[in-house]
């Protein structure tokens, strides 16, 4: 189906993440508690990848060049299985994002396509739904959340709601929890989402003024946020799902963005993407979103923290989203030849996957 240079889809990040785990001594220490992953450097790592295009059974040989670890993928059902000879098999849905992977790893496939990665990312697809004008599905491996987003735009809104801003589009966000009725928590997070999304939607473009952009997000899998609990853990996932659904509906946007959640433990260690359970134990939680041009679009924090902590969190978040900042201790460095940002890449890969699906006749002809 695909021609030209083979591309590694977003799913491959999971594999890459594990490769990263193997490659870095310091990384292993970040694993929390009994879930520690007993991998030693220079061990072989097997991983599966799911390309989602019917060619699942392809085996990809990957080599972690940085430390000379050879990793080979093997199809083992739809699960991400990692096998380290001498230890036992593990699933790759194994709360991977909890860990702080700070080094970039370059690895090569059999096709000699070199790609640069940093830790596991979410997986997503565009246009899974048929009635909505645009839609996206999003699975977050760290928390187990499965989200669906739908966008209807531009549509006519009942007259009472468009009167406020006659010059531009009215953005409406609706969050539907999986196993409860929507309540105060959902209304609160809808407000945050609406303000972030309204800044990137070009509401004055042709056809949009006085019309509605209706974004509906449903949490279809994973545990619900319990009443009274923080919605921050879900916020990055909700933002990514909305962005992808907006792209799928071709709502004009001034830029894209990526978001991340960071937790700070009581001892001051910054943990990217803590799960909902872990988040409860954090001293503070920070959800940040950066536009593709580097603007800070969202800054929601909770808990007690110093300004210095927040600054460190911001730098880390920027590095995760954008791959642009270099912190003082050289913690995150620019990978040579890396284009764009890791989480930003995830948005791009999802879009590219869909373009390839929609335009095989066009791309193959080139």
């Amino acid at each position, binding site marked *: 189906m695909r021609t030209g240079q083979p591309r590694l889809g977003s799913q491959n990040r999971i594999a890459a993440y594990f490769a990263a785990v193997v490659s870095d001594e310091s990384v292993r220490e970040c694993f929390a508690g009994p*879930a520690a992953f007993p991998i030693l450097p220079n061990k072989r790592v097997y991983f599966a990848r799911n390309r989602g295009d019917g060619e699942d059974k392809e085996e990809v040989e990957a080599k972690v060049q940085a430390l000379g670890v050879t990793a080979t993928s093997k199809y083992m059902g739809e699960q991400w299985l990692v096998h380290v000879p001498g230890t036992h098999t593990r*699933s790759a849905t194994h709360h991977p994002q909890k860990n702080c992977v700070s080094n970039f790893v370059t690895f090569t496939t059999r096709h000699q396509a070199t790609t640069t990665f940093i830790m596991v990312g979410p997986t997503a697809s565009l246009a899974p739904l048929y009635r909505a004008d645009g839609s996206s599905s999003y699975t977050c491996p760290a928390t187990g959340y499965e989200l669906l987003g739908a966008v*209807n735009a531009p549509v006519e809104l*009942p007259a009472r709601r468009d009167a406020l801003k006659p010059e531009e589009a009215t953005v409406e966000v609706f969050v539907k929890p999986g*196993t409860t009725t929507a309540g105060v928590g959902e209304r609160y997070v809808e407000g945050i989402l609406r303000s972030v999304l309204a800044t990137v939607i070009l509401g004055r473009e042709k056809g949009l003024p006085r019309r509605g952009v*209706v974004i509906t997000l449903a949490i279809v*899998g994973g545990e619900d946020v319990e009443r009274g609990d923080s919605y921050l853990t879900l916020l990055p996932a909700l933002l990514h799902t909305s962005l992808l659904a907006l792209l799928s509906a071709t709502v004009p946007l001034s830029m894209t963005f990526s978001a991340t959640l960071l937790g700070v433990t009581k001892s001051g260690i910054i943990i990217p993407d803590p799960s909902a359970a872990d988040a409860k134990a954090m001293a503070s939680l920070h959800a940040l979103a950066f536009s593709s041009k580097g603007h800070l679009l969202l800054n929601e924090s909770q808990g007690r923290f110093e300004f210095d902590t927040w600054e460190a969190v911001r730098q880390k978040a920027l590095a995760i989203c954008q791959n642009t900042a270099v912190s003082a201790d050289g913690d995150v460095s620019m990978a040579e030849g890396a284009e764009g940002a890791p989480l930003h890449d995830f948005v791009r890969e999802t879009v590219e996957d869909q373009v390839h699906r929609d335009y095989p006749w066009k791309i193959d002809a080139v």
Partner: protein
Amino acid sequence: MSKEAPLSVAERDFILDALHQNVRLDGRGLDQFRPLSVSFGNEYGHVKLRLGKTSLVVRISAEVTKPRDDRPFDGLFNIALELSAMGSPAWENGRSNDLEAYVSHILDRVIRHSNALDTESLCIIQGVSCWNIRADVHVLDFDGNLTDAACIGVMAGLQHFRRPDAVVKDGQVVVYGVEERVPVALNITQKPLSTTFHSFDEGKTVILDATRKEEQASEGELVIGINNAGDVCFLSKFAGDPIDALFVVNKSNVAQEKVKEINAMVDKVLQADLARRAKKGMAEEAQAENDREVSPNDPFV
């Protein structure tokens, strides 16, 4: 905004003309369902269902609560269907519409009032605590026959769901986590499903599992809730042209056949999923070090 866009004259006339010749737009027979696919997610009671282009997700959840004062021996069971703009641009977020009320009513009658889920088995301490089982229906895509799709989804979810085990110790209710004790299946007494027929041409032509456009062109509908044994638990004909009584009898037989087929199909998927979980559970026990629950994959997608 709460109404689907009306059909054009051409569409309505053509659908009727074609049905005169027993032809449907998707090439189906009159008494044929669209392709049905049911699969289960990671959690117990997480159903993904697709009937043609209509698709939905059902989530079953349980919590301990106090029984109603007038029914101290009964647990609680609710079906929550909330239509959002995801399923159709015609539906407005946060506002209920006629379809929502209509489908909720039928689900209540077919599943709850038929006592398909034995609510007495949900009682923990009489008058003090009981389980509250909640079925959430999320409509992802609406292309007709929401009633039957939701009904199949909720029934499949109830059969798949496992609630945590709870015991009474010294008058206190202790709920065990899924890791501590094997969770408990719900007590399903029977498996009734609804089947919806739409009539055309003054009741001369009747079709099963109408698409959205066929529903819009139809003159009336007949819903039969029936179980495998042929017990009719619900029968409704809310509006539209009258149809012959004999016809209702004939269609009940068709409905029973369809319900049997669908229940058998759901059962097969359910058994396969449970078998896979059991196998995985054993594998996990064998590897005591494997400390964390892995998310099972879904072989049916």
